[in-house]
C-alpha cells in the first residue's frame, strides 16, 4: 500500500481501485480579484486503505481545504476527487450528503458533541441520521463506547467529561456506523500531550482496518509516529510523502 503524490499535474492516471482516495490535479481558489487566494494548486495524491495517513504542514498550507474537499464538504475549483471509487463531482447534492453520511466518519478538533446529549446519544447520532431507532442506535453506540474505554461514562453529558474523554466519544461517533473513510481534523490539538498520545493510540487500535482509510490532519509532530505515511503540504501543494521513520530521521539530520 502506498501513497502517491505529485504537485505537478501527472498523467490522468485511471483510478485503479486500490486506493480509498484518489485526488487528481485538484485546485481550489477562494475569492476573486485582489482577494483571490489559491488554497490548493494542482494537487494529485492517492490515499490507501488500511493505513493511517497524516496530513501535516504549517497553518494555511491547505490541509483543511484538502480534507474538506475529500470529505465532500467543499467543492473544488478544478480537478477530481474519487472516494471509495466514487467521483464526488458526479454526485448530486442529495447523493453526496447521503454518501457522506454512510461512508465517511468525522473527528473534529473541537469535538462538536451536542451538549444536551449523553455520550451514548452523541455517539449514536450517525446511526439516527441513517434511520436507526433511538433505542437501537444508543445500544449500538454504547458498545462502541465500550471499545474506546468509555462504557462506564455512556450516560455522562459532554460537560461532565474531560477533553480526552470527549474526543473518545467523538471517535466512537465517527466509527459507530462503520465508515470506509475516517477524516480527523487536528484530533489532538485541544488536548495535553498525554491525552493526545492516548487518543492517537486509540485511533490506531480501533480505526485502522483493511478496508478503511484514516486521514489525520495535524501539525503536532509528537504524534507523527502514529502514522503509516506522512504527507507534508506547503503553500497549497504537496511537498513530500514519507514514512514516519524517514520524517524523524530527516528532522534529526536537519533536512
Amino acid at each position, binding site marked *: 500500500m502506498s501513497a502517491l503524490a505529485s504537485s505537478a499535474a501527472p498523467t490522468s492516471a485511471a483510478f485503479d481501485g486500490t486506493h480509498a482516495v484518489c485526488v487528481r490535479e485538484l485546485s481550489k481558489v477562494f475569492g476573486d480579484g485582489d482577494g483571490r487566494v489559491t488554497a490548493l494548486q494542482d494537487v494529485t495524491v492517492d490515499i490507501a486503505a488500511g493505513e493511517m495517513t497524516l496530513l501535516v504542514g504549517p497553518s494555511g498550507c491547505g490541509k*483543511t481545504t484538502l*480534507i*474538506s474537499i475529500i*470529505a465532500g*464538504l*467543499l467543492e473544488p475549483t478544478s480537478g477530481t476527487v474519487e472516494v471509495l471509487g466514487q467521483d464526488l463531482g458526479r454526485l448530486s447534492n*442529495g447523493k453526496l*450528503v*447521503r454518501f*457522506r*453520511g*454512510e461512508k465517511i466518519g*468525522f473527528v*473534529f*478538533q*473541537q469535538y*462538536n458533541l*451536542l*451538549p*444536551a*446529549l449523553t455520550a451514548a*446519544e452523541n455517539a449514536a*447520532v*450517525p446511526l*439516527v*441520521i*441513517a434511520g436507526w431507532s*433511538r433505542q437501537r442506535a444508543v445500544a449500538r453506540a454504547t458498545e462502541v463506547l465500550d471499545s474506546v474505554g468509555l462504557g462506564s461514562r455512556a450516560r455522562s453529558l459532554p460537560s461532565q467529561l474531560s477533553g480526552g474523554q470527549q474526543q473518545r466519544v467523538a471517535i466512537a461517533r465517527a466509527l459507530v456506523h462503520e465508515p470506509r473513510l475516517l477524516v480527523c*481534523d487536528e484530533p489532538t490539538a485541544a488536548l495535553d500531550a498525554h491525552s493526545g498520545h492516548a487518543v492517537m493510540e486509540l485511533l490506531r487500535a480501533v480505526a485502522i482496518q483493511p478496508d478503511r482509510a484514516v486521514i489525520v490532519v495535524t501539525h503536532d509532530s509528537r504524534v507523527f509516529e502514529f502514522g503509516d505515511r506522512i504527507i507534508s503540504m506547503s503553500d497549497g501543494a504537496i511537498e513530500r510523502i514519507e514514512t514516519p521513520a524517514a520524517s524523524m530521521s530527516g528532522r534529526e539530520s536537519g533536512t
Partner: protein
Amino acid sequence: MSWIALRMLTGDRSKYYGIVFGITFASLLIAQQGAIFCGLMLRTSSQIADIQGADIWVMDPGVQFVDDIKPMSENELYRVRGVEGVGWAVRFYKGLARSRFSDGKFQQFILLGLDDATLVGAPREMVQGSLDDLRQPDAVIMDEGGYKYLWPNEPFELGRTFEMNDRRAVLVGLCKASPTFQTFPIVYARYSQATMFVPRERKLMSFILADPAPGWTSQQVCEQIQQQTGLLAKTREEFIWTTIMYYMIRTGIPINFGITISLGFVVGTAIAGQTFYLFVIENLRQFGALKAMGVTNIRIVGMILLQAFVVGLLGYGLGVGAATLFGELSKENMTLAYYMPWQVLALTGGAVFFIGILASLLSVRRVLVLEPGIVFR
C-alpha cells in the same frame, strides 16, 4: 432526529425559558387584551342581549346604536302592530334617569320601562323579590351589581326608597343583569311608571319590541315593517352587531386596544425571535457537524421548525392559560369587562404561529447557507 432537536432545544435552559417566556408574554398580552376588548364590546350591546322573548327591535330610522335614543310617538306602535307578519308588538322605554337618595346623594340610572301588561324585556333571573311585585305602585327592580355599587358591603334589603324626577321609587326586587358599557345601575319599571320617573316629553317611546307571527321569519317581518312604516327594524342579532360596529367604528376603543395588542405582538416577537435566532446561531457548529455527518437541509429545517413549534405551543398554552386564569380571578369584579370567545384564542394562536414562523425563517436561512466545512475551521 426529532428527539435530538428537542434535546438541543431544552438543553440550553436559559435560552429555552427565554423563548418560551417571550411567546408566553405575547400570548398573554394578545389574549388578555383581546378578551377585555371583546368584553367591552359585549357590554355595549348587553342590554339587547339580555332582553329575551322579542326578536325584533323597531326604532326611529336615525338610531345608530342602542344608547342612541330617538323617541317615537305612540302611534308608531299601532302602525307596527298593523303590519302583516307581526305577531305582537309592545312599547319599551330606555333612558337615563337621575335619582336622589335620602342622604342627598344623586346617582344616574339606566331606566328600562317594560310593557305594563306583558312585562316583555323583564330580567330573566331574580336574586331577591318577584317580578310580579313590579306591578305594585312606584315599584322598581334593580340589578344586583347596581345595588352593590350603591350600597357596598350592605346586605340585600328590599323596600329601600329613593326619588326619580320627584317621584318616589320603591325597590321591590333584585335581579341579575349583564354589566353595561356605561356601568350605571339598571332599574326596571313598568312602562307607565318609567315615563313618570323622567321629565315629561311629547314622545317617550324608545323602542318597539316585536315578534313574528307563526310562519314568518324575523328577517321577513323586519323588511315588512321598514317598507310599511318607514321605521328601522332589526333582528336582535342585527341590532347587537349594529351597536358593536358603532363602537368599533366611531370610538377609539379598537385603536387603543389594537395598539396594546400590537405592542404585545412586537415585544413578544422581538424577545422570542431574537432568543430563538441566538439559540440557532450558537448551535451553528452543531448544525454544521450534523450537516457534515449527512443530515440534509430539509431535515435541519424540520428540526428547527419542530423546535419553534414546541416553544410556540408551550408559550401559547401558558399565555392563554394565564389570560384565562386572569379572567377567572377577576370574574367577581364587575368593573372589568372580560370575555374570551374562540376567535380571541384563534387570533392569539395565529399571532404565535406567525412569531414562530418569523423566528424560524430568520434562523433557517443562516443554517441553510451554512457550509458544513465550518466544522473544520
